[in-house]
């Protein structure tokens, strides 16, 4: 309860939450407001926004309703962002926890692997993965998750390194706890807050990565994603710039919302802040 109170005290965090709720609302209501397939042809191509009351945000270069694509795209973006983040953070926490807790050669091996991933620009790695495994929604999501885990892993490891020698962990050991109990029940809850906050960043980056893939037309073309729309708009960017700009604003809003919520959570979840 305390944490919730602290969260709502910060205007930025509340703004982030409102924006995020709007995006989530769009994703939920897409089916009711735009029951037709958002990728079906709806009218004349390249109608400007507000020019035709049937197409509030206009149509793209093949005559599909942009508003419908934005609403349905919210689903795709949140889905990819959420699932990819879950994958990245799960792998990251497992690798980081093992490396940080055990140290020694386990740490050495895991960290060398992590570094190997980090030295490759993650977008290039993503391109390779998509090129090899194809670009369906599932593979793109998994690929984005796989390229995003090193940073959460390093963060978790750093937390574990500083927490594992704390007296309360030693106390747990003298009580007879197993390593798994110490890792999962003693150290992890204390290591989690910075990782949760970082998950916000991972989610924002995941959404951007997918959009970047779509812009290069390497994402799943059979779903209405914001990135796909930007990619389409590329061809008419100089005149009908709104085709790219509208999904761009949607991405910006979502990424901003996720970051603000993450930051707000950081301030709210951290009980030490109370004493400052």
């Amino acid at each position, binding site marked *: 309860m305390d944490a919730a109170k602290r969260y709502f005290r910060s205007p930025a965090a509340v703004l982030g939450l409102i924006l995020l709720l709007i995006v989530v609302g769009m994703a939920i209501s897409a089916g009711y407001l735009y029951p037709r397939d958002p990728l079906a042809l709806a009218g004349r191509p390249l109608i400007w926004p507000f020019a035709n009351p049937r197409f509030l945000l206009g149509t793209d270069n093949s005559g599909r309703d942009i508003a419908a694509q934005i609403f349905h795209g919210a689903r795709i973006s949140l889905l990819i962002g959420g699932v990819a983040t879950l994958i990245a953070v799960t792998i990251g926490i497992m690798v980081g926890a093992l490396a940080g807790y055990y*140290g020694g050669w386990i740490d050495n091996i895991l960290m060398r692997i992590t570094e190997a991933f980090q030295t490759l620009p993650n977008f290039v790695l993503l391109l390779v993965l998509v090129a090899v495994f194809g670009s369906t929604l599932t593979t793109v999501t998994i690929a984005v998750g796989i390229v995003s885990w090193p940073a959460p892993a390093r963060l978790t490891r750093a937390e574990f390194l500083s927490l594992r*020698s*704390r*007296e*309360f962990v*030693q*106390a*747990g*050991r*003298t*009580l*007879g*706890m*197993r390593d798994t*109990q110490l890792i999962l029940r*003693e150290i992890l*809850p*204390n290591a989690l807050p910075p990782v949760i906050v970082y998950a916000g960043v991972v989610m924002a980056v995941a959404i951007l990565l997918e959009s970047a893939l779509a812009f290069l037309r390497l994402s799943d073309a059979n779903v209405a994603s914001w990135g796909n729309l930007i990619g389409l708009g590329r061809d008419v960017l100089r005149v009908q710039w709104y085709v790219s700009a509208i999904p761009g604003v949607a991405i910006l809003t979502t990424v901003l919302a996720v970051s603000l919520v993450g930051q707000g959570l950081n301030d709210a979840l951290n*009980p030490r802040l109370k*004493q400052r």
Partner: protein
Amino acid sequence: MSATATILTVDRLSVRLPKGADRPHAISEVSLSIAENEIVCIVGESGSGKSMMANTIMRLLPDGVTTDGGRILFAGHDLCTATAAEMRRIRGADIAMVFQEPMTALNPLRTIGDQIGEVLDIHTDLSKAEIRSRVLSLLTDVNIPDPPRAAKAYPHELSGGQRQRAMIAMALALDPKLLIADEPTTALDVTTQAQILKLIRELQQRRKTAVLFITHDFGVVAEIADRVVVMQHGVVVEHGPAMDVLRHPQHAYTKQLIAAVPPVAAPPPRPLSDNAILTLSGVVKTYRTGGFLGRGERVTHAVKDVSLTLPKGATLGIVGESGSGKSTLARCIIRLIDPDAGSILLNGQDWARLSRGDIRERTQQMQMVFQDPFASLNPRRKAVELVAQGPIVHGTPRNQALAEARELFDLVGLDPSAADRFPHEFSGGQRQRIGLARALALRPAVLVADEPVSALDVSVQAQVLKLLTDLRERLGLSIIFITHDLRVAAQICDLVAVMKDGVVVEHGLTRDVFGSPQHPYTQALLEAIPGGDFARTAHG
């Protein structure tokens, strides 16, 4: 006081805390004065506002904390109304300060000589060469061994005592009229503390400096103070010449504080059992490169061939200074650290040779109480869960374990209704009781207590020690009690072993070891207890 000039007068000073603090004022209506060539001690426990006094005089108050009435007169100026520029001139030059922890007060990236020189560089227009020679003479004054080398050393290359000497040299660089020392010896070992106190006294007499000395320890007061000011909850409860206050305290709180510093005299020995419950023989622990506690490639013989016996129901004190290996030994006994050699026989079983898994199953037999009541409790667990953890790990059903944990709260003197709070809602002494309840929840036969009262205020220390003696009788506990404080050891231990550099130099009945110490190191330790005669004679 009429003969000598008053340097500093604090007149009905109040300091307001921000809203939401535990009390409206950190200090209220405090008056005191310090004359030239005089040492005034402010004594009080944590939260008494004694450090806030020092910070207010230096005008180094944290955000949101402001003075709220009263004056601080220093050489005719009211420091409360001085401008920031005036304060900068006064700080360092006229009023200097020595802090508790020299490691954090010094910049780790610059040499000692550089940092002392900086003070001279800012406040004087001496040339580089003059500054260098002044730095060397200052370091010589504070009796640092090999001053030219110390000037070139970085803070981490010096010992704690040497760092504090360097801090004092820095504080005295500009011949201040007033030196404020905020718990300058609290982080140091007793023998080092005795040297630093002697040094401060000597320098003060030679330079006629006025010293405002802040401490929680009445032993230190007896050692160094001319006059004493006792503070509690931001109010001065008693003040007067040191000897009067020490010998004839008037206020109940002063009496309580002095009573909490008992003489180093062992209580009458209790009959000890002939059966040993725990026998250590030839325990060795050496740290080599890497290791998660060792610091690098050096080989450190932390524990060298230690053999000790703990009779059933007795308390064995292991005393020594930092680096003596006493904490390593404790961790070897409980197998947080694996000893390299030797045997640790508990109920006929050698703990030194049991596997990790076997140890886990036997943790009910031996439990540990940790030093730091803030670090040793998982901040994300409720108190009752912390206490119930052990039994749950060992297979007690959760609900039953929680119910039993609540009963334990009563046993260690905590309100069972507080069981659902989180650790940060308890005070230090209360947290240590939670730690004790957690250890007792497994009904151990042997309790290893690693400095369990060192982080606590003296009056709280006395309460926790009393609880420990009570529980020892009631539950038939055998205790290994690690401490650096001989006074604490004298109060609770039947037997005592003195460790130095990983070796037990002397051990035996507490009364024998403290009454007629044989080893020169034991003698030096006893000699170094602050307050000397005051500590050794009965009082209170």
